[in-house]
């Protein structure tokens, strides 16, 4: 019999984590009930960034919705642009030229790399390794340079639009991308050694926050979270959009379902994304980059949805049109929103420090959760 009897329970202590907390990744509020260091129960409170975005879409013409999607998942704005553009294209039956599709895929993958680099950095900070955060941001700046070269913005690009993309690749883009990737491959390995090879990092993440395969499916987890639990669910493979079916890439899947697995999935995805971008340069055909779109865009009445794989998971826009200028309803299926709903289950009985580790490994963006 252990000396520490759990029968003597102390009255719980309810702690607020957030809205202003160094590691809640935005303004998430966790109401954590503690017994000493052990979490009894946890209740996430969200909505601190709620701005009624879906309602605002209803008062705007289709193309004017795009700038707002930048600010949903602000770490991967282009993926959001792509998702809503696809929804609009499906509602209005618009075909996109091949070259535009390649450019879209390429940029989305580059944005995915930038987003995952933020994950590596913030996750390392959550675990306590501040330096990796700065290394990751140093690398991310280079990715942002590339994206800025293409789109003219650092964070909110507002660039992919229904019918294609507005501008072709700039001069010397390929060379710049290649040189940055060369470096990124080296620094990624360095960062990886700093964390993955680190014993402290391993004991902090291995076997922590385990999501079983069934659990992940039942709760609707997507993206790196479900792939970390051993389910090869990647929209790019199971329902390919744009030109993903023509590209050769792997979907990294890890079976452990713990924080480490989710972290490794993302590291591996960076490598795969680089592979995709390099292929895009090789395969890209010449041609148009934008379909001719009517000045006043009125899609036929109907419903459509898009499914895309954003860095966080399955990002899908659902759109209802009644034939007028504005959509009747735009709904965003935000992966982070679904992942956060798993938290109360995941956090039962863990230590306080693990709360942060688990929350960080889900890589939620609150702008997307609250909409």
């Amino acid at each position, binding site marked *: 019999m252990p000396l520490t009897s759990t029968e003597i329970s*102390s009255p719980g202590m309810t702690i607020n984590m957030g809205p202003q907390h160094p590691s809640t990744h935005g303004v998430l509020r966790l109401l954590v009930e503690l017994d000493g260091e052990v979490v009894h129960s946890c209740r996430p409170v969200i909505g601190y960034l709620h701005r009624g975005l879906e309602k605002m879409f209803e008062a705007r013409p289709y193309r004017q919705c795009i700038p707002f999607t930048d600010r949903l998942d602000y770490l991967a704005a282009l993926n959001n642009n792509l998702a809503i553009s696809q929804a609009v294209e499906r509602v209005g039956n618009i075909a996109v030229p091949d070259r535009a599709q390649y450019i879209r895929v390429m940029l989305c993958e580059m944005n995915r790399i930038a987003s995952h680099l933020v994950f590596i950095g913030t996750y390392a900070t959550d675990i306590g390794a501040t330096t990796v955060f700065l290394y990751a941001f140093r690398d991310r700046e280079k990715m942002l340079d590339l994206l800025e070269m293409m789109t003219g913005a650092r964070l909110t690009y507002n660039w992919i639009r229904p019918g294609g993309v507005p501008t072709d690749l700039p001069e010397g883009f390929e060379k710049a991308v290649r040189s940055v990737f060369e470096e990124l491959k080296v620094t990624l390995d360095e960062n990886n050694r700093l964390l993955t090879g680190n014993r402290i990092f391993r004991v902090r993440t291995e076997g922590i926050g385990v999501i079983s395969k069934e659990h992940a499916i039942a709760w609707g987890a997507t993206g790196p979270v479900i792939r970390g639990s051993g389910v090869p669910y990647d929209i790019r493979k199971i329902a390919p959009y744009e030109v993903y079916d023509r590209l050769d890439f792997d979907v990294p899947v890890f079976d452990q379902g713990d924080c480490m697995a989710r972290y490794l999935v993302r590291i591996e995805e960076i490598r795969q994304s680089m592979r995709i971008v390099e292929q895009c340069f090789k395969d890209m055909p010449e041609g148009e980059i934008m379909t001719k779109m009517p000045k006043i865009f009125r899609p036929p009445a109907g419903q459509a949805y898009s499914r895309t794989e954003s860095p966080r998971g399955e990002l899908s826009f659902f759109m209802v049109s009644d034939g007028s200028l504005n959509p009747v309803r735009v709904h965003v299926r935000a992966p982070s929103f679904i992942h956060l709903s798993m938290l109360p289950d995941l956090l039962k009985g863990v230590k306080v420090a693990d709360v942060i580790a688990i929350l960080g490994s889900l890589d939620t963006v609150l702008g997307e959760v609250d909409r």
Partner: protein
Amino acid sequence: MQSYVPFVMFTAIGFAFIFVTLLMARFVRPSAPNPNKQETYECGPVPVGDAWNQFNIHYYLFALLFVVFDVEAAFLYPWAMAFRMFGLYAVVEMIIFVALLGVGLVYAWRREALEWE
């Protein structure tokens, strides 16, 4: 008594250093209290309940273990000064003493007193 003079002096000066600094700061620093400022900080929201409540027993067990081992160390310090007089005999005795403690540690380990859970 003479040997305690530096000790007393250091304590007094250390105390005075902090005290005088805080006192001087008191005259120059602004002060604009308001009810929100006086309240306990807990990430923005109003704190739920009080922070002073009973604590988990794990901390207590570690404190107990600490006391045992620190007393051991306190015994060993005079021993370390004097063991050369008695030679190997003293060392063996000390090792037995430490081993006894080690057995205690193993006992606590086996009874899962060292687990935080």
